[in-house]
């Protein structure tokens, strides 16, 4: 049996455990030509620089801020839609609308960037075409950092709504009809039935999804950010997250020491965060704890 598990063990050893050794790069002035432990050791200098320049604080705020918005809005919208859809009777309507809402989940983030370009590009974007038709001056969305806070959240919701809705719909289907019958006899109207039966019954699904989401709160959605923003420096203040910063440091500026330091910070901070959350949850309700 051990043999059957072996490929998996080797895979994670190479793909995940070996790179952990590479954390050492965070403490060096990286030199690609020399081997790992020959690079000049500089202690915490990389971290110090990231901290002093304010980069670390900004990146952390952005990363966590967006993720909280994704989790809260994403779940609320998915729950609302799942409830509304489950109350409707038309079989065809349900099927078609569910399929349509699930569709964005399947297309790549590159296509998403095409969509955004199609909608917002200055010269011929759909938005500006519409605006000029109504006699309003065109807007250059690409030079308005604040607009992207909303756009990123909206497109996140657009892409993921169908997926999370299906999960909640499944949970709703699992609720026994008897509760609703009993409530009906007691004279509860449909809003009361939803509020006092459906919503509480979705709590456990919500908590499970929430915990999974919290686990990756320091990572999260690199594709989305990078495909929407790319290397557009104008927008970094409001849209740069740890993942995009690390990627850029590696690909564009090739600042390996700094990029590793940011990555280590991300990993460590996330790790501590999960451990803390898990500890708190275990104190409150053991059933929901991750491990």
């Amino acid at each position, binding site marked *: *049996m051990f043999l059957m*598990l072996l*490929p*998996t*063990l080797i*895979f*994670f050893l*190479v*793909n995940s455990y070996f*790179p*952990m*050794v*590479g*954390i050492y790069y965070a403490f060096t002035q990286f030199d690609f030509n020399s081997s790992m432990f020959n690079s000049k050791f500089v202690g915490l200098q990389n971290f110090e620089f990231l901290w002093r320049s304010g980069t670390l604080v900004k990146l952390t705020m952005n990363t966590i801020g967006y993720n909280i918005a994704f989790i809260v809005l994403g779940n609320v919208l998915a729950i609302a*839609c799942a409830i*509304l859809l489950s*109350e*409707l009777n038309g079989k065809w309507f349900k099927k078609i*609308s*569910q*399929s349509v*809402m*699930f569709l964005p989940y399947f*297309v*790549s983030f*590159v*296509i998403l*960037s*095409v*969509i955004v*370009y*199609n*909608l917002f*590009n*200055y010269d*011929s974007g*759909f938005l500006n*075409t519409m605006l000029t038709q109504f006699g309003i001056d065109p807007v*250059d969305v690409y030079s308005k950092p604040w607009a992207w806070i909303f756009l990123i959240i909206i497109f996140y919701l*657009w892409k993921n709504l169908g997926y999370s809705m*299906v*999960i909640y*719909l*499944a949970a709703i*289907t699992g609720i026994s009809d008897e509760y609703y019958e009993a409530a009906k006899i007691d004279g509860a*109207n*449909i*809003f009361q039935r*939803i509020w006092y039966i459906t919503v509480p019954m979705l709590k456990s*699904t919500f908590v499970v999804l929430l915990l999974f989401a919290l686990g*990756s709160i320091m990572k999260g959605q690199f594709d989305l950010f990078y495909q929407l923003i*790319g290397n557009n420096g104008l927008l970094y203040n409001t849209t740069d997250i740890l993942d995009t910063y*690390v990627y850029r440091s*590696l*690909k564009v500026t090739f600042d390996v020491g700094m990029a590793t330091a940011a*990555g280590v910070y*991300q990993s460590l901070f*996330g*790790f501590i965060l999960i451990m803390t959350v898990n500890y708190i949850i275990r104190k409150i309700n053991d059933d929901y704890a991750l*491990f």
Partner: protein
Amino acid sequence: MQIQKDKYTRMLHAIAYVVIIGLSVACLLPFLLIISASLTSNESIIRDGYHLIPKQFSLEGYKTVFIFPDEVLRAYTVTIISTVVGTTLGLFFMTMAGYVLARKDFKYRNTFSFYIYFTTLFGGGLVPWYIMITKYLGLLDSYAVLVLPGLMTPFLIILMKNFIKSAVPEELFDSGKIDGAGDFRIYWQIVLKLSMPGIATVGLFLALYYWNDWFTSSLFINDTHKYQLQFYLYNVINSAQFIAQMGAGTGVSLATEVPAESTKMAMAIVVTGPILFLYPFVQRYFVKGLTIGAVKG
């Protein structure tokens, strides 16, 4: 049974129809915009901008894409092969791992479960991983790098393990053993057959990842002949998009020098095509798989 609707129910239904229809339209609209743009003549896009219905119908975008079909076809081939190979290999290893971890009589299953799970909690980050693959494994610019790094994820292994646990009763393991079947044979002949919905779901997740992957190419591939389809598209679009953005920033319109708008949109459709075509069939399994997963908790 006909239930009489009270006014609250009618109100809720009205809200539901408005919200659901509204969101469905919002989900669909962007696709219609791209399809429309791909069918509009380039001059019309530059002059009038993008519209929901083509102002000047034309197939020139698609024609341009297929003037040099070699490049597109090559990117297609790379993506199809890496999707098929990656999904098959990944499924094989992950179902096997899921099976072993689901067996109660496997002594170290908790240790190894944690070994796998721990990688989601803590890691070296992107850079050490990148150096590992390029410098120590020497996979830069190889076809293998398009398949290997995405082969398995802890999430899918755990999903697989839970599926097998719920789909295959433990007695079957025992009876298989009594009949003299080895562990691999039990897995190959019993477990795989009984956990088909789970395999379909995990397989779809994996296939979707490979099909939509652009990130691997962007990190590890310099040879344009080995680009994945999505990254190929990304390059076609971005070489033009960058110029357009610069133009907007400085107030100078460079639109005429930008490669054909309609071609870009046609390219996007050509890349998305197979997914849109397969979507109705695939989506059923996805919903079923997710549903089973969610109900089991």
